[in-house]
């Protein structure tokens, strides 16, 4: 596998390689948030907080405690999941935008915590993290996560998550323990947030609390909503567009963020449900597959 990676590094331009690696990480992060916000409908605006927990935990474990790469990643994700579980508990009582505010507050507290956290280098950040993450590891994990996510969302549990988003009272009256499932969505989503964070820190070599600020959370939320709430292809597309957009917009140099902001507004005006929000594979098949068959109207 190392040979394969060496080959990839040799033949692909480092600039594109970097974008592809970051895309893989963003997909993992966004799929985690998609589970919480897109699928279960619990607006979270603090996903970068979980990412930073995973990033710092795994980095410190592999630098100072000699954890192997995989173990460090899993431990980082597990710690993030634990905090996701804790944050999931207020969902017992809070609704809608109150919950959003708690997630913002939580992520800010985490950021301030790392700004004052001695082993993490405080505001200076943490450098010298081993660069274990490469194209192969990121995309192997990303594909695995996509596959597991797809399976989950097509299962009984996945349908229950969607049902909570659509109508909580009706969901409860079909026997869904809405409280437990909301906490579960938070826990699983944060696990992926922590995993993405670990991959990120082991790729970047250097991390700093400002990498995981409010704007990062918002960027991840944009990926989920832009692509289409709750849709896996939509989330992947959203990650793709928003990972590439800043790169493409490099030609406009300092006007980059200006265009980025305008792009968000324009996309929402023309595709209010997200780019793939109301597109289903089933409908596409029907539209293209049955062209010659004249079905009579029932």
């Amino acid at each position, binding site marked *: 596998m190392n040979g394969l990676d060496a080959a990839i590094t040799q033949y692909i331009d480092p600039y594109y390689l970097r974008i592809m690696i970051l895309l893989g990480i963003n997909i993992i992060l966004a799929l985690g948030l998609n589970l919480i916000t897109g699928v279960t409908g619990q607006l979270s605006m603090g996903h970068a907080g979980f990412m930073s927990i995973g990033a710092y935990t795994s980095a410190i474990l592999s630098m100072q405690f000699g954890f192997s790469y995989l173990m460090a990643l899993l431990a980082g994700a597990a710690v993030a999941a634990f905090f996701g579980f804790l944050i999931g508990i207020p969902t017992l009582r809070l609704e809608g935008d109150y919950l959003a505010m708690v997630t913002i507050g939580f992520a800010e507290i985490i950021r301030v915590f790392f700004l004052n956290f001695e082993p993490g280098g405080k505001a200076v950040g943490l450098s010298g993290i081993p660069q274990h993450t490469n194209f192969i590891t990121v995309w192997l994990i990303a594909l695995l996560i996509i596959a597991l996510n797809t399976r989950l969302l097509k299962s009984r549990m996945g349908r229950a998550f969607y049902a909570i988003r659509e109508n909580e009272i009706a969901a*409860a009256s079909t026997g869904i323990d*809405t409280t437990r499932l909301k906490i579960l969505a938070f826990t699983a989503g944060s696990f992926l947030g922590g995993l993405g964070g670990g991959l990120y820190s082991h790729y970047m070599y250097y991390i700093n609390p400002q990498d995981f600020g409010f704007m990062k959370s918002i960027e991840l939320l944009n990926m989920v909503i832009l692509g289409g709430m709750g849709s896996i292809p939509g989330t992947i597309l959203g990650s793709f567009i928003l990972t590439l957009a800043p790169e493409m917009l490099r030609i406009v140099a300092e006007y980059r963020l200006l265009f980025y902001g305008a792009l968000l507004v324009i996309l929402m005006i023309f595709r209010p449900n997200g780019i793939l929000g109301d597109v289903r594979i089933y409908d596409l098949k029907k539209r293209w597959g049955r062209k010659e068959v004249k079905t009579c109207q029932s």
Partner: protein
Amino acid sequence: MPVLTLEGISQEFGGLRALDGVNMVVEEGEIFGIIGPNGAGKTTLFNIITGIYVPSEGDLIFKERRINRMATHNIARLGIGRTFQNIRLFNKLSVLDNVRVGSHGISRSGFFKSLLGLPSMLREEKEIKSRAEELLELVGLYDKKMEYADNLAYGEQRRLEIARALALKPSLLLLDEPAAGMNSGEKVELMKFIEQIRQEMKLTILLVEHDMSLVMTICERIAVLDYGRKIAEGPPEEIKNDERVIQSYLGVGA
């Protein structure tokens, strides 16, 4: 044998007494109707039975078990299915998925089983799907199983809600104004349908309805609520002739 017993159920909302000491016994296999003017507390009663509200006073017994403080999902799992007066479907899910979610309470594949796709989970998925399709066949929505629920016509949405409630394999089914917005032809069909599912699925049915002719035709017993109190109970013939009912509800013309 009584399926559902209400003993002195009262419900207060900030000083307003929505229900006042309601007693009621629903026997196994019967179709029991609750009627009353708007605001009489009919829907509140349903919300108490399904655990959405906790009653301020009184006891709620389902098959010899007190369910007063039980959570909504646990009550559903005991086998109480319901529909809603203001339709509550999962709008952005397909018709088929709406019914599949309906069987959540009687299926068990959990999070990790779903992730791993174990054989037992796949088997259960098959069962859930085939049963959902049967139910859609029964309510005449099979051809629309891939439509989004909110693209259905109003009457179809009502039928989909019933199919979803039946997916829970309930022994007690609560129908909240099932005939609302239907024309007389549809109402006749609905009555036949209710009778049919009761027999085929051995259901006990409790229904709230405004349409008098429907209630009088299919219910074996009827309770009348007015301002949160039960003012009468009995078979349709008796209710029709009850002085207090005529005064407070059926009005002069009835």
